[in-house]
């Protein structure tokens, strides 16, 4: 075995540049795969975190008949005395960080000739779960609970309608009795959650004002609940079960993200195979060149009694050494760039590409997972060795006489 290693090392050392270029192909290939898997994991984790934070919370308590897609404001679909219910559940379960009512309505914002369809969300400006919007205010102020004329709009909407803090807009909303109601609102602040699709189509009112304008009175669409740990959702949901309302978890509400993740995973597998195919071709090509260059030596070794399987092992070992060097490089290279973009993030605005239903941030922070690094390294190693098998076998099956004549 030592001899095999010695010969393999020396053979690889004969054409150092070629060996290094082959290893570099493996390094770049694996590095890209680690990076891409980091993007996927980061994107999905980021989207889930973002969606939970902005859209679904960890749990929602809804009226028995409430259909989130219809954004119904009928009294029978809403939760009565929502603040009292929120306070009760908050006091009852230590796992709950915050529980706050939200009233969701559909509306149209108009400014001069321009108008946009929006989702109007009535929130309690002081609730902890809503501080993410307060922190996201980039111009003006956040809402105040008692404000009856103020509205908070997202940055993309402000840009599209050329709005600034202090401007007035007309807001038309659906009401509980099926009519529409409109009123002029003054823009108190412009916010961003760095989630284009959300910010463009969501405006906020203090919940009291939202209840008034929609005629919902002391009712809300849902109680938005934030837990200490998202894994507690099922336990708390089970404990909250009641015949008066339904409880849905983030997992129920974000089934699409899981689907998209699976879908993206399948696409990534194709991407992996393409990249690894290119890498494997480079390594295989290197070995083919090496076999042709060393045909006569293979003949000599066969003549002095080296068997085909040892010649096969010799070439496979050389491929394995190239793969090892490349994989180590790939882990370092891929790990470094994934770590770097994990810290700084990089802009990739998928929401502008028309993907809806998932709140993906404008910056993606890559996530390096040990599982992915191991899986991709092993996969790269195996693919490289499999691709090397053909040239190694070609060497091992050469007829000594022909090989000695360099044929």
């Amino acid at each position, binding site marked *: 075995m030592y*001899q095999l290693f010695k*010969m393999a090392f*020396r*053979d690889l*050392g*004969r054409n150092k540049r070629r060996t290094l270029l082959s290893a570099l192909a493996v390094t770049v290939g694996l590095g890209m795969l680690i990076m891409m898997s980091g993007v996927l994991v980061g994107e999905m984790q980021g989207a889930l975190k973002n969606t939970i934070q902005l859209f679904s919370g960890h749990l929602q308590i809804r009226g028995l008949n409430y259909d989130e897609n219809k954004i119904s404001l009928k009294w029978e679909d809403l939760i009565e005395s929502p603040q009292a219910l929120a306070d009760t559940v908050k006091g009852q379960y230590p796992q709950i960080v915050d529980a706050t009512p939200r009233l969701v309505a559909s509306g149209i914002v108009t400014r001069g000739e321009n108008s946009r369809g929006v989702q109007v969300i009535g929130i309690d400006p002081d609730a902890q779960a809503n501080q993410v919007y307060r922190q996201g205010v980039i111009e003006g102020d956040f809402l105040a609970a008692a404000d009856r004329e103020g509205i908070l709009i997202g940055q993309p909407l402000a840009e599209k309608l050329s709005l600034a803090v202090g401007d007035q807009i007309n807001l038309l909303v659906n009401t509980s009795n099926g009519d529409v109601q409109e009123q002029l609102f003054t823009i108190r602040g412009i916010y961003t959650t760095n989630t284009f699709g959300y910010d463009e189509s969501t405006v906020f009112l203090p919940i009291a004002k939202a209840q008034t304008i929609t005629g919902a009175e002391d009712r809300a669409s849902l109680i938005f609940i934030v837990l200490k740990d998202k894994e507690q959702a099922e336990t708390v949901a089970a404990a909250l079960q009641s015949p008066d309302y339904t409880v849905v978890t983030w997992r129920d509400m974000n089934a699409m993200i899981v689907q998209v993740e699976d879908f993206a995973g399948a696409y990534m597998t194709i991407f992996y195979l393409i990249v690894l195919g290119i890498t494997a071709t480079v390594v295989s090509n290197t070995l083919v060149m090496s076999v042709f260059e060393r045909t*006569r*030596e293979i003949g*000599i*070794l*066969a*003549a*002095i*009694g*080296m*068997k*085909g399987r*040892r010649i096969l092992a010799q070439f496979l070992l050389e491929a394995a050494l190239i793969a090892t060097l490349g994989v180590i490089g790939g882990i370092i290279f891929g790990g470094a760039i994934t770590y770097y973009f994990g810290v700084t993030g990089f802009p990739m605005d998928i929401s502008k590409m028309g993907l809806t239903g998932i709140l993906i941030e404008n910056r993606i922070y890559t996530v390096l997972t040990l599982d992915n690094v191991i899986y991709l390294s092993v996969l790269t190693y195996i693919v490289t060795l499999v691709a090397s098998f053909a040239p190694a076998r070609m060497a091992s099956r050469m*007829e*000594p*006489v022909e090989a*000695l004549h360099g044929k």
Partner: protein
Amino acid sequence: MEVANISNVTRNFTIGKVETRALRGVNLKVQSGEFTALVGPSGSGKTTLLQIIGCLDQPSSGSVVINGQDVTKLNRNQRADLRKGSLGFVFQFFALIPTLNAYENVEMPLLLGGQKNGTRKQRVMELLDAVGLADRANHRPDQLSGGEQQRVAVARALVTRPVIVLADEPTANLDTENGKQVMEIIAKLNRETGVTFVFATHDPRVIHYARRIVTLRDGVIEKDSPADAQ
């Protein structure tokens, strides 16, 4: 003792649509300790016959018995085993592995035979000493002259104590002095160790080292006689 018995051996090659008959019914017996030269013009079948005796190639028909074993019935691996244990080769070109030094080149057949390190070392140094290259053991082929490389090849051919050593034009790429040196070493080893040598040559300067001369022409043995009868 008979170390090789070639009976009615033919070897045909097909190149494109043309069939070439390299050997056309050769009969040859080689006794232990012989020092035999295969001579004849280019294309007479010397190399083909050596390759068949050396189990590097197989005859189209006829039988080849090496050391009592019919090698035409052996498979690829069994022929490799036979080459490893019973046959030694010296080629026209200096057939050394360029990444290994002189010592490692000579050692390679012993490694393939699974011999222990201590035994290997002693045997390799013994052979390098016999070819006068003990002090060049650590040199790689590109640091050795053509003559030195061929002497290393001779040492490698003998290191496993083969029953027969086959040399194909061993001096063809050497100048007179180096050719003479190599042949003298081979002759000396033949005398001292009793190892059987069969070498192909058309170099008149080295034929006189042989004690038996087999002349081939057009794939058949034209003449087979002791050297002094030539």
